[in-house]
């Protein structure tokens, strides 16, 4: 009787310890970002938990800061452009790699993943020096091309995994049913793989929108992005305006991610 009881107790204890550990890991993972968002609503001059009521004054400050609004605009333009280019080239490569057969295919496809592996500091320096050599101007061109390179591996992996499960019989069936290759592509292939493309588009957008390390080398005066602004503000000291700007960034990125996940289904 007592043996059973103590067994049950150690079982409960073990489960309690496990649950506690898991909870702590989630706290560790999520609380920092939650704290950024929470303390953006303070009325004080430093990021504080808003016990004494929620204030939007730092968001108001944000709205009147033309430099930050400019950075937000730049980030949008760059992320949109970069995402489109990344999807185009990531998809082209994914289709090619899935359907072509040639020696060393697997090894060659690793090139598509390199931008994910090499430290972004190196990417940033390499790109800005190289762009200087081939006469690409710093600013939008370097940012858009650079960010698209950083997004390509994600699009490539996503679209490739989608295409691998694509049933090639569908295209054959369409042809036999009387559709020519163009109609087959627009009626069958495109509708089936487009959710993956859209999902890839949003992921590439997110990668670009949040990128700082390589970006700091690629910007030109007047084309600063939001993460670069946040970094510069952090250098000069903590103000809740950083939190407000970060929160805006978080909202946009999470929104894009939710859209992407929704489209993937």
């Amino acid at each position, binding site marked *: 009787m007592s043996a059973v009881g103590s067994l049950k107790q150690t079982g409960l204890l073990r489960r309690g310890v496990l649950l506690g550990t898991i909870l702590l890991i989630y706290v560790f993972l999520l609380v920092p970002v939650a704290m950024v968002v929470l303390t953006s609503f303070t009325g004080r001059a430093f990021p504080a938990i808003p016990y004494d009521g929620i204030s939007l004054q730092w968001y108001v400050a944000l709205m009147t800061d033309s430099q930050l609004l400019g950075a937000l605009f730049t980030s949008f333009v760059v992320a949109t452009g970069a995402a489109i280019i990344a999807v185009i080239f990531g998809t082209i490569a994914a289709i090619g790699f899935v359907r072509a057969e040639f020696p060393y295919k697997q090894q060659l496809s690793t090139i598509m993943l390199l931008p994910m592996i090499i430290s972004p500091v190196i990417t940033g320096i390499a790109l800005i020096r190289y762009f200087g050599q081939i006469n690409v101007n710093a600013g939008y061109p370097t940012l858009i091309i650079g960010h698209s390179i950083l997004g390509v591996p994600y699009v490539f992996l996503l679209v490739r995994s989608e295409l691998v499960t694509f*049933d090639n*019989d*569908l295209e*054959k*069936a*369409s*042809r*036999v*049913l*009387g*559709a*020519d290759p163009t*109609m087959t592509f627009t*009626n*069958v292939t495109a*509708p*089936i793989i487009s959710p993956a493309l859209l999902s890839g588009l949003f992921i590439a957008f997110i990668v670009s929108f949040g990128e700082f390390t390589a970006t700091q080398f690629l910007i030109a005066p007047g084309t600063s992005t939001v993460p670069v602004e946040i970094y510069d503000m952090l250098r000069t000291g903590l103000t809740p305006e950083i939190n407000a700007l970060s929160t805006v960034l978080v909202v946009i990125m999470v929104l894009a991610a939710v859209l992407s996940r929704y489209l993937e289904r």
Partner: protein
Amino acid sequence: MLEVNGLTKYYGDLCAVNDVGFRIDEGEFVTLLGPSGCGKTTLLHMIAGLREPTEGEVTLRSENVTNLPPEERNIGMAFQSTALFPHMTVRENIAYGLRMHGYDEEERHARVQEFLELVDLPNHDDHRPGELSGGQQQRVSLARALAYEPDILLLDEPLTGLDRVLREEMRQWLMTLQRELGVTSLYVTHDQEDALSMSDKVVVLDDGEIQQVDHPQAIYEQPVNDFVAEFVGKSMQFSGPIRNDGPRPFVDAGDTCVVLPNDSVSSDREEVSLYVRPEDVNIEAAQATADGGATTVAATEENAFPGTIEKVSNLGNRAEVTATLESGETALASTNRFPHLEVGDEVLVTFDSESVIVL
């Protein structure tokens, strides 16, 4: 209706299909039978226009279509994977082929309805393929392939992947449908039961080459070579040289002698293979002699061999009995009655010399 002449396909140096020729008449149901990798799918794709032949031609309705793309051949095709478009409803799937063949909205609607009823799925037009069972999907796939009245229906192992009971049912259903519509059909399969039970004519393919073209019964009873004999149906096998120094020709298969049909080749040949179908083999318990040993009637009768029961499988409507002969060969008999035999029983295996297939 369909004629294939000297069709050949090379992949690099590899020959997948070699000089294949056969014809299908209007309304016929022909099966292309062969083991996987024998080139039957390549052959089917060349007929459909999905693959370009290295040599040879395909004639459909007396028109040479060898160089036409699939969409201009007016064929219907059912795939093993069903290949239903997952993003379209059942109705849209069936209407797709009609749309591509220029049917207007009204006709499309009527035909979709008609063919859904034909395949017994009248109320499933708004379902997505993913919501249907395997058998239902295959039926929709057939409706889609037939709705625009193709000149010929190509079926690429449509029943593979269905479970045994459903497969049997679909086979019946498919045969009825084909006879009803009278559509010329080419059915590709590796399953001999499919081939023997449904077709007017069977084309046996192996290693990219045609082995035999004949009626199902002839394929089973008069195979032309060892491959066909072994691939289609089960059998009991012997081999050895033919001898003519007895009252009738016989084969000296080591420890046993097998007497051959009267009309079989009388010339001496080094080595022949003999096949006896299980339906023609009889296995019965050996009668005990007075001293308790098994009889040796075998010695006096032709084609009767003593053996021991190895396995008895009851297959419901029939039973299969496997015995090992004293000479070492394995005998297989199929019977409609339940054989009152057990593993280890001493038996006598007999068959009529007229039923022996000599190759």
